[in-house]
């Protein structure tokens, strides 16, 4: 179990939002007010998608939409 796994087996009956709040509560007890290290550890587990090399065209389309 890595450090971002905060042993919350006892709160499984809570709603998804309550569970997230409970995990944040426990993360705060461990990391203090600044939760960035906790989030960074989680982000390492997030797969990275390929870059959209044509994203600039989306911006142009959006600007055109706004003008219209």
């Amino acid at each position, binding site marked *: *179990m890595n450090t*971002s*796994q*905060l042993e*919350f*087996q006892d709160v*499984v009956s809570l709603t*998804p*939002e309550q*569970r*997230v*709040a409970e*995990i*944040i*509560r426990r*993360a*705060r*007890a461990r990391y*203090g*007010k*600044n*939760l*960035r290290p*906790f*989030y960074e550890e*989680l*982000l390492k*587990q*997030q*797969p*990275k*998608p390929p870059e*959209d090399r044509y*994203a600039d065209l*989306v911006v142009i389309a*959006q600007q055109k*939409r*706004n003008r219209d």
Partner: protein
Amino acid sequence: MPTPSKDFRENPKRAIYVLGGIDQQQVYRITPEILRLRAECNDPITVYIDSYGGETLCAEDIRSLLYAPDQDAKVCRVITVVTVAAASAAADLLALGDYAIAYRNSWIHYHGTRQTPQVALTTEKAESLAKSLKQSNEQFALRLARKAFRRCIFHYGNVASEFEELKKHLAASDFTGGDTSDLACFAVALARRLTPGGNLQDVPLAAFKRQQAIAQLNDFVFSKAKFKAEDPMAAKQAEVLKLVLDYELDRKQKQKDWLLSSGGLLEVEDDFNLFNDYYFGEYRNHLAMLIPELGDLFLSDAELQEWRALANANEDQRNNWLKERVEHRIHPLWYFVVCLFRLLQQGEFSLTARDAYWLGIVDEVIGASDLPTQRLIFESQPGPPPPAPAATTNP
């Protein structure tokens, strides 16, 4: 590796599609689909959105149907997803999802409530229409702010590491009028993450300035007020009005041409309304609900220990203890978020998916691997333990 959770994931197999204008025909088209999905099971329903909006009442009909309880009082969780565009009423529908997702290149457009009058306008009708639009804007802003508040608390923990550095910059600049509070830092940290060049970066700063204005007014009024909580409201308001007048006179001492008769009275009225809103506005009712739900996240480390020791106290005692400690901390942040959404309801704002994330309109931008999400927090935790084997008894 995170374990996928259906509570935080889009699912085209249990989905409805809000594509195009939101009108009565759209409601008729998707009603049978919603009813079928609700009857099938209580798993989340995904609402895919690509819409420029339409009639707010029809959007409300769709939302009400989605959240209608079944005969066993069960309500499906709703995951909203903007694929291309969500504007106006569709943007509200998106933000009000239990978990709101934006595709990487989607965009979201916000503006205030609009109404095309069906009859010729007179002065009286125009006034009544203006009042009704203002009321609608306020109700929508409050509802959205309540949804966004949880998302903003999440961002607060994420950007708090920048506060120390920001404080140094803010102390030396006029960006927040010399204010270096955590809330000032949070407003600036949000503004820095929004798309530059348009009017969007001004929104968190303007919301902060409203919060700052009320803080200064409060300090003045409460340092001089003599009213007691049990005094009649009319007497309290009269005293506040007199103090607001003193406050403006005090601030305008150097402006020789400042007069009540040339615009000053309007400023006094605005200040009075601001004070009244802060202490007695409708949004205060929501604050009372937020404290038991999220208040302990605002406790200091020492207070958190005390709070844990109260675990066995009765609910009223715990709530009162918590309210005493955190109301003055949670109230400014809540007012700031309310002001954010009031401002979004007043202008025209085109947001990228990332802008929507930072303003608390969506929880996740698919493909933005640098933005932490509640899904990631939830899915990274180990699942519930397997049920214990049934105890065997001797024959």
